[in-house]
């Protein structure tokens, strides 16, 4: 019997959405391995949302608290998780490949001397061993890996594992995580403007490229994003980020973020190969471009050929109607 540990993520005392994705991935492994899912949360006190974790398949929800754990504490978190892993018989440990998870998971892996399969987009158990699929060469190929030995450590790409309801007991446990927080200290989080979503996590992305002609014109995309009532973020192509029109945090593509939203609307983006690498796993792609031969139409599910300054405002109007 081999159990699975799901390492969840909180910010400001509330669970982040990616946590439910991690539980969903962990549940799939646990079903195949015939074990239990333990969900682990590190925080400075009680965390909102933990009562929901059972719904997505956690048998146990363990909150370990330390006054220094309100914000991410790289060394303290890694040590606490590694100790927890060593004390249980875990066949697999699942992290989120979020900004924090990309820092945390390798630390835990190094602490345990175990390999880490990062940025996983699919997983399975074959002949008792965990196998995963991860994008390589910036999404231009998929690599299937077998993780030998236990525990198998993996981190899941955000927005890929849709949370699935699989009600389990979700028994709550809590305890103290003793020990120092470490030498590397997160002093603060400077939050982005209230209500703005990160492109890596938004279910809908409205992205703009050189076709926008100048930075001020991104207003038409911001208005379209706003029409989706808090569900959309504004992204950008490398060309406009390099030109300084938009911040790098918004860049989608090979030297920016790789995204998998439900809906990706590419506006005035020609579709360079390095951009396609970053968004080709979107569920539905819409392209709006005045050049009917633009490569973006080759990957788009739906396209409109036309002047974006006429098409986008009309789309904004129609979306607003839907949200009445």
């Amino acid at each position, binding site marked *: 019997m081999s159990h699975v540990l799901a390492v969840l993520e909180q910010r400001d005392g509330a669970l*982040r959405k990616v946590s439910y994705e991690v539980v969903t991935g962990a549940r799939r492994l646990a079903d195949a391995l015939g074990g239990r899912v333990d969900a682990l949360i590190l925080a400075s006190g009680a965390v909102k949302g933990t009562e929901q974790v059972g719904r997505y398949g956690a048998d146990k929800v363990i909150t370990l608290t330390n006054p220094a754990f309100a914000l991410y504490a790289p060394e303290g978190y890694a040590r606490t998780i590694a100790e927890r892993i060593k004390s249980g018989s875990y066949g697999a440990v699942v992290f989120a490949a*979020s*900004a924090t998870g*990309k820092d945390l998971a390798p630390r835990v892996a*190094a602490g345990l*001397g*175990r*390999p*880490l399969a*990062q940025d996983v987009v699919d997983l399975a158990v074959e002949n008792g061993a965990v196998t995963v699929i991860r994008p390589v*060469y910036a*999404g*231009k*190929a*998929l*690599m*299937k*890996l*077998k*993780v*030998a*030995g236990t525990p198998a450590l993996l981190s899941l790409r955000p927005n890929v594992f849709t949370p699935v309801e699989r009600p389990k007991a979700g028994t709550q446990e809590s305890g103290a995580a003793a020990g120092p927080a470490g030498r590397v*200290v*997160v*002093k*603060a*989080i*400077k939050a982005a403007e209230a209500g703005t*979503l*990160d492109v890596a996590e938004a279910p809908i992305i409205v992205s703009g490229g050189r076709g926008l002609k100048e930075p001020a014109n991104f207003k038409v995309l911001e208005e379209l994003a706003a029409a989706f009532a808090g569900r959309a973020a504004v992204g950008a192509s490398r060309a406009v980020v390099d030109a300084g029109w938009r*911040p*790098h*945090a918004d860049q989608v593509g090979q030297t920016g973020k790789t995204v998998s939203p439900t*809906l990706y609307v590419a506006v005035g983006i020609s579709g*360079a*190969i*390095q951009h396609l690498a970053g968004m080709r796993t979107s*569920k*539905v*792609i*819409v392209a709006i471009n005045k050049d*009917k031969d633009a490569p973006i139409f*080759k*990957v*788009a*599910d*739906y*396209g*409109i*050929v*036309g*002047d974006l300054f*006429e*098409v986008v*405002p*009309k*789309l904004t109007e*129609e*979306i607003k109607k*839907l949200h009445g």
Partner: protein
Amino acid sequence: MKIAVCIKRVPDSETRVKIAADGKSLDEAGVKFILNPYDEFAVEEALRRKEKAGAGEVVVIALGPAAAQETIRTTLAMGADRGILLQTDRIPTDGLEVAKALAAELKGAGFDLILCVTTVAHLEIEGMKGVAEREIEGGVEVVEFPLPAVLTTDKGLNEPRYPALKGIMAAKKKPLDVKPATLGAGGGALEILALTPPPERKEGKIVGAGPAAVPELVRLLREEAKVL
């Protein structure tokens, strides 16, 4: 200030990836390899730190095949002082193994700072203390740390310089130490089963031209794609 920068070679961003006949690796025929674009930010940052301090050394280290010497030369042309290649034709799938080999080489050599890719978008260092900012979802994390430290640099940290002709000429004479990589026996823990191209997206449809096509697009997104 003595700074090490860990770099690697990657296929050019514009490269189309082809899978080799074994179904497990990249077909390197005709693939142009370049310095990882993110690594340019790390090299640039190291050069700026050294210039600011007025003294020090920038050492660039890579693990990879003999051809990676060319990639290291690129950074020497940018201004790095010397290079080290831990040579192997078998690059481990497990990043931890690579990290261990690099760490073994750098350990005890007196580096104040070790730079790799990729998360820090802003960095300040005063004396033996550093403050870095890194992008997280929906914000920026402010992180304090003591030196010596390992830092990972992100796009936006600086504007990397282009190697000047003088630098390219000088790079040919700079020391580049090539030695075999010492890798652990744990290489089999992550076994590559297959490398495949990503699933093709089936060709979509052009809904129409101009704003008149928008109502039909919205209908399709609602009724056919069911994403609205």
